[in-house]
């Protein structure tokens, strides 16, 4: 008996629920092709970071202009005039178009902008470049003690609304879990125009380098236990928001995929495992997922999806309890 792995995400019909999330893997066409060959049903490209462009644009301009015209023997500056020098988004946009041309699966562009104009401007460009959908990678770290939670939430909503205004392709919003009322926020994001939510953004937290006593940025690959946070919230949101739900963060194997589908994810996204084991790992996960479904006599992913969500779970309260209570209880009941 063959299992139907198809799923629907952001209105896109996907062959299975395995989607590589935004990561450096998506920066190369040959890797994207290998991912498709391995069975990826769609890809999310690495994020276009407006701030990086801006920073680089200013730096490039300063290098070229401000070192020029200051010394009589080097009036043209200290670097060659590179007419095709690109600090702007052209390279990214070309990559979207090239990925689109090279792949038959849907291509989802990802955007992290710094200004309202940036969000809308780049969103439109990404749509023009041929992206099938757009994922807004929103990361607003509220460090200003004067800014209230409501202020911050409104900024999220404003920018989703602004982007919704200018693009017609499906829109996913990738956010972190740090909202006082995640469920309410999710519903408002969807009401404002998000077609899907990607849960959750894994923020890389800074570390300290003891040798130089300085803050050191870190990138740490995710671990399977990290799926528990999206697992809880997808379970809770399934059926309560009218939007696609993507789970991301910690998906390493078929086990995580299946668990997340059970609680209601439409797709599961992975990056760390693919970076760790190579694009071919996706094939293994897909095979194992299929095997489990077959062994457990499921007909389709659709059948599985959400079957253990908050509303369908035999013990909904388990999703609501703080986890340590159950853990503690389990420990106490150990023989």
């Amino acid at each position: 008996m063959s299992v139907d792995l198809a799923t629907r995400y952001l209105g896109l019909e996907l062959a299975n629920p395995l989607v590589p999330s935004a990561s450096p893997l998506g920066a190369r066409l040959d890797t994207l092709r290998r991912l498709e060959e391995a069975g990826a049903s769609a890809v999310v490209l690495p994020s276009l970071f407006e701030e990086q462009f801006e920073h680089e644009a200013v730096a490039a301009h300063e290098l070229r202009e401000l070192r020029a015209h200051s010394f009589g023997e080097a009036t043209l500056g200290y670097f060659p005039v590179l007419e095709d020098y690109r600090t702007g988004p052209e390279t990214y946009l070309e990559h979207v178009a090239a990925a689109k041309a090279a792949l038959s699966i849907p291509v989802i562009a990802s955007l992290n902008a710094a200004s309202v104009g940036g969000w809308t401007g780049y969103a439109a460009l990404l749509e023009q470049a041929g992206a099938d959908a757009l994922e807004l990678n929103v990361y607003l770290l509220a460090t200003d003690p004067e800014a209230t939670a409501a202020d911050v939430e409104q900024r999220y909503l404003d920018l989703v609304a602004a982007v919704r205004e200018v693009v017609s392709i499906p829109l996913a919003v990738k956010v972190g879990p740090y909202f006082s009322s995640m469920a309410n926020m999710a519903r408002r994001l969807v009401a404002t125009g998000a077609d899907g939510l990607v849960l959750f953004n894994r923020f890389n937290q800074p570390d300290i380098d003891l040798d130089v006593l300085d803050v050191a940025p870190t990138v740490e690959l995710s671990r399977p236990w990290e799926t528990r946070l999206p697992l809880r919230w997808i379970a809770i949101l399934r059926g309560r928001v009218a939007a696609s739900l993507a789970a991301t963060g910690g998906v390493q194997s078929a086990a995580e995929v299946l668990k997340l589908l059970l609680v209601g994810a439409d797709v599961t996204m992975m990056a760390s495992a693919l970076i760790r084991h190579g694009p071919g790992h996706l094939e293994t996960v897909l095979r194992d997922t299929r095997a489990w479904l077959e062994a457990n006599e499921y007909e389709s992913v659709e059948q599985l999806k959400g079957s253990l969500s908050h509303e369908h779970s035999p013990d909904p309260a388990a999703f609501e309890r703080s986890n340590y209570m159950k853990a503690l209880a389990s420990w106490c009941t150990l023989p």
Partner: protein
Amino acid sequence: MSRALAIVDGNEAAARVAYATSEVIAIYPITPSSPMGELADAWAASGRPNAFGTVPEVIQMQSEGGAAGAVHGALQAGALSTTFTASQGLLLMIPNMYKIAGELTPLVIHVAARTVATHALSIFGDQSDVMAARSTGFGLLASSSVQEAHDLAVVAHAATLESRVPFVHFFDGFRTSHELNTVELLSDEEILELLPRERIREHRDRRLSPDRPVLRGSAQNPDVFFQAREAINPFYATLASTVQATMDRVGERTGRRYQLFEYVGAPDAERVLVLMGSGAGAAEETVAALNEAGAKVGLVKVRLYRPFDRPAFIASLPATVRSLAVLDRTKEPGAPGEPLYQDVVTTLAEELASGRGLARMPRVIGGRYGLSSKQFTPAMAAGVFAELERAEPKNRFTIGIVDDVSGTSLPYDPSFRTEAPDVSSAVFYGLGSDGTVGANHNSARIIGERAGLHTQAYFVYDSRKAGARTVSHLRFAPHPIGSTYLIEEAGYVACHQFEFLEQGDILELASPGATFLLNSPYGPDEVWAHLPREVQEQLIEKGLSFHVVDGHRVAREAGLGRRINTVLQTCFFALSGHLPLDDAIAAIKAAITATYGKYGRQALERNFAAVDGALAALHRVEVPAGASATRRIPPAVDPAAPEFVQRVTAMMMAGKGDLLPVSALPVDGSFPTGTSRWERRSLAKEIPIWDPDICIDCGKCAIVCPHAAIRMKVFPGDALAEAPRGFKSKPFRSREHPGTLLTIQVAPDDCTGCGVCVDYCPAHSKEVVRHKSINMRPKEAHLERERERFEFFLGIPEFDRSEVDVATIKGSQMLQPLFEFSSACEGCGETPYLKLLTQLFGDRVLVANATGCSSIYGGNLPTTPWAQNGDGRGPAWANSLFEDNAEFGLGMRLALDRQIAHARRLLDLLRADVGDELAGAILEHADRSEAGNERQRARVAELLPMLERVDSSEASDLASIADVLVPKSVWIVGGDGWAYDIGFSGLDHVLASGRDVNVLVLDTEVYSNTGGQASKSTPRAAVAKFAASGKPSRKKDLGMLAADYGHVYVAQVAIGADNLQTIRAMVEAESYPGPSLIIAYSQCIAHGIEMSTGMTHQGDAVNSGYWPLYRYDPRHAQVGEHPMRLDSRKPKLAFKDFALQEARFAMLERVNPENAERLLATAQEDIDERWHYYEQVARIERVIPGKHDEEAEE
């Protein structure tokens, strides 16, 4: 046909034609012609085709001699070729030029004419270079404006093909090469149509081909050489008419008609000037103004100088001429007159003798003007005309200077003006780093294009690299602008840096009623109180319309940091009224969009915010009726400065060097050293302030300071008896010097604020990590206190050198630097090595310095950094050329060695007179330690008075050279352009010689001084000029090439990565009694790094294996050990992680990611392979055959 007007400079105007008409372009950077090569390289890199539809082959060579050779070969193989050069570069091409002309080969060399170095180098313009090439057989064609640089370039390329005679097409360096002007450019199609296609085919037919072989370049004998040389004559006989015919064809197409000798002025003129080049612009205005006032004067502009067409010259003169003044922009000492003068006199004399045309011999006088871009103004031209009116006019005169020695100079009335009233003039004072010049380029284009005005923009740069000042001169008019001199009266004056008001007469050029814009931190109501009295007085006397804007605040608030150019540019448009304000704003925003649009919205929005913010922050200031300030502009130098500095240097510093008479200047180019300390440039906004409580006495801040502005001194406690209140010190942790104190002191006016010391300081507070032992603090808050402290600090006696272990970090930094306060860039990576060199050996060192950055920050007037110690001893420094520096230094060594041998012989002869003991002690001196050298110095000091008492010529001779008996150290210093490229053969020869010289290569891996062109030191994958696609080949391993000799001491060092290894390498190199080579990693602004982190960044260069540290000491080979010692550890950082911190590598990813990936990967392989190779070399045992025999003989 009407063509679009463009605003370009002379270099671009000529380069466009050269590029369009050439297939092979060989280039080498030299100011002021470098931009022509850079443009050609950039166009080729971007795939732009020439007029024939192919992309020219553009190749950088190792020298101008190499470029000429490559061009010669390309021509022989049938290509159309060109090159660009100036000054010494043209001189290096001369041997090939004789050959190329002798073989009748069509070629055009475009020359931005520049001064040839004599008593001094000068990067500026005159025609001494072209005149040095006038006997090569090349045609010499002179352009006097930007438009001509374009048109006559076409004439040159067409005429050389038509005639087979090669041409130098030249125009004045800077004045024309760097002047922006409104010109009409010919399209490539039009240029192609003007070229004689049949002649191109003929040229190709003459190419060397084995299908129809010929032999060229034979060696000829007395029987035929002479006749063969004369066989060329017919080609020169028709050359002038060919050029005129070509000019006529260009004229038919463009409407601009040129003559070989072009006369302008009264048809019945009696007095006529003859000159060539940009001076014609000023002279032509003068002729018009004088004739308007009733005079009868004229001007002959010389366009074709070689061949000198005598009939055409005679024909150009009005029959009425009674007297001629011929002006040469060159000097030929000892000649009857300068070249153009001699040609004119000869022509006139021949014509008179022939009895054909001339009724009488006009009086002819000749003179020199404008050497090294000295201004040539209408007032000076009028002065020459006035001289022609005198009964006995002066011949062999000078104009534009005061010659109080030989009395050559002519008087003139500097108030004479010719500028038309419809010309509006604006002058802007800015810093090189604030973008003023870039913005003015932009403004000139906007006004030229939007207001339909003709535009001229010329920029004056100072010679410093850090804190360089710029003065922009912009003219706008409804007609073409030919005023080839700086603005003398401006209707708009802008001062973009408030501090400039204290540093010179900013309002000198403001005309009565002019507009004055001041970038001021003080608003319209408070600024008046902050102005020096001279400024207040001029504002009132001239009735200036005074405006202020706080450009720095607007820029900061807009998120643009210190980039004030957009703000000040907007204010210029608002105040000058060249365009309706709304149009101007739209144009500025359009220009911003063109620049930033593709980069992203934020940069765009920030600049727009600066434009809008500028208008809101622009305020008119009500000028009171009377001056109120008591404060005056301070004198340029401290009254305590030496007499020469007061009398001469101070004038240059105040921008009044033009007023110095001939008698004020040294006759042979020798200048006193140690003058930089008298120039308080006070560039820094923030300076480092020491916190002794945290200091660990390491000396690292001092060793890395590029400007010797952080000083370390160790002294006994009682030295502080007279210390000013708050003078900081701490107990010095030292077993050798117990009870001493340490002070780390900033020189607050000499610090450039680069921040390298703070970044490098390893000591930080336990409570607040970012608080280090030195911290950048706002200068204004600390200036007065630190000035007082630094003054006192200088007076604390220096530590006794003979008691210091110099080969340590602390020890070396306890010694007085004798290289201080140079004008190098903020954070320069080269200067710390030079400073260390002078700390270690400065009182007994001779420096031969190759031309380049180090000769500019080390030897450019007004003030120079090589200094003297309290005994008046210090480095003796000289610069010869770019290409010959190793040989130059070797010559010094040879002289010293001969003098030492001579002195020893004399001393031996005089043993009886001076005492056997003293003579013996001097002759047997072998202890080269600081203490040993000091003892030898004392002995020589003891010897001198004894010699005075001996009445013999031997004693007098010995007295005159006895100082050489104290060991001297010869250091040959230069950059990688010299060592790897142009001077490599000489360097190789000097290293091979085995003589005791020390070579220090300050390796920035590019030609830094001329703006970052690739050298053979440039690493693979780096983007540089002439390597715009990333350098495809690996860096030359100069160190291993030298080590291969076996007898050369070689070290590769990086002072920021390992201070001690650098110190040891210098000490070992100096002590090694043979040739030594130190290759020193020197970060540079051309690397595109944050310069404040340059020294810590060197750590990554070493850790990645990009820059391995090693020492190769042949002395170890002599005792059977391994000579090569690897001082750095096996690479532990990926090259990419190091490289992508630098724009020179990172930018390639933005242009050509595939190429970047490939080159970066290959560069990593280079590193891996080299490390593997070095590891093997480090295990190799070597002996130097014959070495022991030589020593035995000695």
